[in-house]
């Protein structure tokens, strides 16, 4: 029985390497200069790329971070430093609820709040959907790391005459910054791969998307559209895009965990 469990563990871990292996095998050859610099070409023609999807994903993630991180971060400060237990419970409960909402439902939410009133599909709507998803992850993790800062540091700061907000800004947050950074990176990596909320918010674009008010292509949505198509060239590009996307996400995850591990023992248990 013991060896059986070992086999289970090996199977689980090898799944990751199999996935990476397939992506490299099928997509590796298609990750070329064209892929990163060219726009998509009409069906049937070759030589197209995904430059607009890469930039589009970048813009969407930037917007998501600008929305999700401040709200999560500042909300966490409130929970960790200022709030009483009932408010804390309500806010945490709401955040957990939001975290558990399936991403497709977040897409519906963003569609009714941003797309309909403005009457466009837009990068803004997509960024909002992804930002909403980042909020609970950032909030809960930041709160945890802030709470884990020893009270001695807080009291030391107060003893030296710092007001509460000064203590937070100059002592507590810097002490927990590794964990907070990790939380932000992990949230970022999580929404980087999300497709469902973008389907009816950012829609898609075969050209560059100017500004924030136009639909935009994004890597996950393009992978989806190309994968279900019947064109060989598009399939190859889907694999390549998958490889690029997964590599990006894995690198961010590894960096995030590295950041955390190098920190003080208030990291992994």
């Amino acid at each position, binding site marked *: 029985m013991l060896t059986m469990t070992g086999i289970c563990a090996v199977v689980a871990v090898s799944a990751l390497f199999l996935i990476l292996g397939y992506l490299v095998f099928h997509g590796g050859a298609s990750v070329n200069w064209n892929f990163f610099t060219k726009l998509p070409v009409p069906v049937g023609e070759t030589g197209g790329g995904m430059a607009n999807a890469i930039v589009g994903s970048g813009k969407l993630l930037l917007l998501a971070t600008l929305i999700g991180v401040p709200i999560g971060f500042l909300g966490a400060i409130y929970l960790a430093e200022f709030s009483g237990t009932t408010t804390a419970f309500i806010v945490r409960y709401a955040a957990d609820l939001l975290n558990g909402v399936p991403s497709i439902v977040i897409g519906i*939410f963003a569609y009714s709040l941003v797309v309909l009133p403005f009457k466009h599909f837009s990068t803004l709507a997509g960024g909002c959907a992804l930002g909403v998803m980042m909020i609970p992850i950032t909030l809960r993790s930041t709160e945890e790391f802030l709470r884990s800062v020893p009270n001695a540091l807080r009291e030391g700061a107060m003893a030296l005459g710092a007001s509460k907000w000064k203590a937070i800004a100059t002592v507590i947050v810097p002490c927990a910054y590794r964990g907070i950074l990790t939380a932000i990176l992990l949230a970022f990596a999580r929404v980087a791969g999300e497709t469902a909320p973008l389907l009816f918010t950012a829609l898609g674009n075969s050209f560059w998307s100017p500004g924030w008010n136009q639909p935009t292509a994004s890597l996950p949505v393009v992978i989806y559209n190309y994968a279900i198509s019947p064109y060989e060239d598009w399939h190859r590009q889907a694999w390549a895009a998958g490889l690029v996307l997964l590599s990006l996400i894995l690198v961010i995850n590894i960096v995030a965990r590295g950041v955390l591990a190098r920190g003080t023992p208030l990291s992994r248990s």
Partner: protein
Amino acid sequence: MAATTTTVPGTGPVAGSRSWLSGLREGDEIVRLITFLFAAFVVFLTVLLVFELWQGSVLPRHKFGFNFLRTSVWDPVNEQFGALPFIYGTVVTAAVALLIAVPLGLGAAIFLAELAPVRLSDNLEFFIDLLAAVPSVIYGLLGIFIVIPLMRQYIQPALKSTLGFLPFFQGPAYGLGFLTAGVVLAIMLLPYIISVSREVLLSVPRDQREAALALGATRWEATWKVVVPFARSGILGSIFLALARALGETMAVTMVIGNTPVISASLFSPGDSIASVIASQFKEATGDLYLQSLIELGLVLFLLTFILNGLARLLILATSERGGGMAHL
């Protein structure tokens, strides 16, 4: 540190600094207010989401009532909408996924928590956490090009010839359908079951294990008969968490399930799930009743995941209270 004068607020020695100091005190209030607003905004957002879902599904709720959950006809032309095929599809794929992922995941978690040396356990856990980070659409990509052909050419015919007397393995083997969706979901759920179960198992107090060993149990007996039952509720919690995640999975499922609202005992049959049908039909649901029926499906899904997440949390808490280990997730 050079000569420091500890300034007690309110008694500043320099005349002009008094207003600055009281300004600082105000600073606390301002910061408190600002951070409160952001925290309250999170609550507001959640309430707004539920409100939008509720308001957005008013037509079908009034027209169909609870029958929405019981009827299986999904007919946009005649405006008849019933959620049953999608609820069925969601439940079946989740069930298949759990049937595969739970034994595998629990086995791996036991190995990592009880049997593996600490460094190996941590390193393997690192890779398993990375598996959790793989986006759904990539699983879908692999599903379409690797799993479906595998299913169609080897696995489904093999199942049919060996277990074909069971209603689950009858019917033509298309490669896509409930079974394939379940298999792809199982791989996606593995990391969640493994990492939560591992933590829960690690939080079981040492003395439980040692007492069993002292009484003459083998390592396996100690693990399986003492430690695992002790952590039972936490493990159940991890299963519920994984289940909640499975219910909401959209992309990987929609790419391999067959997109047909059908209720069938056969796992080879194509079907559809709630998340999958919303993804494929939302953009073009013409007519308010159609669109709002899709939103009502979203509401149903939301409620399902809400209940499951709540239960999961309670169960995990129950184990950790007993074990005194990790207090929150």
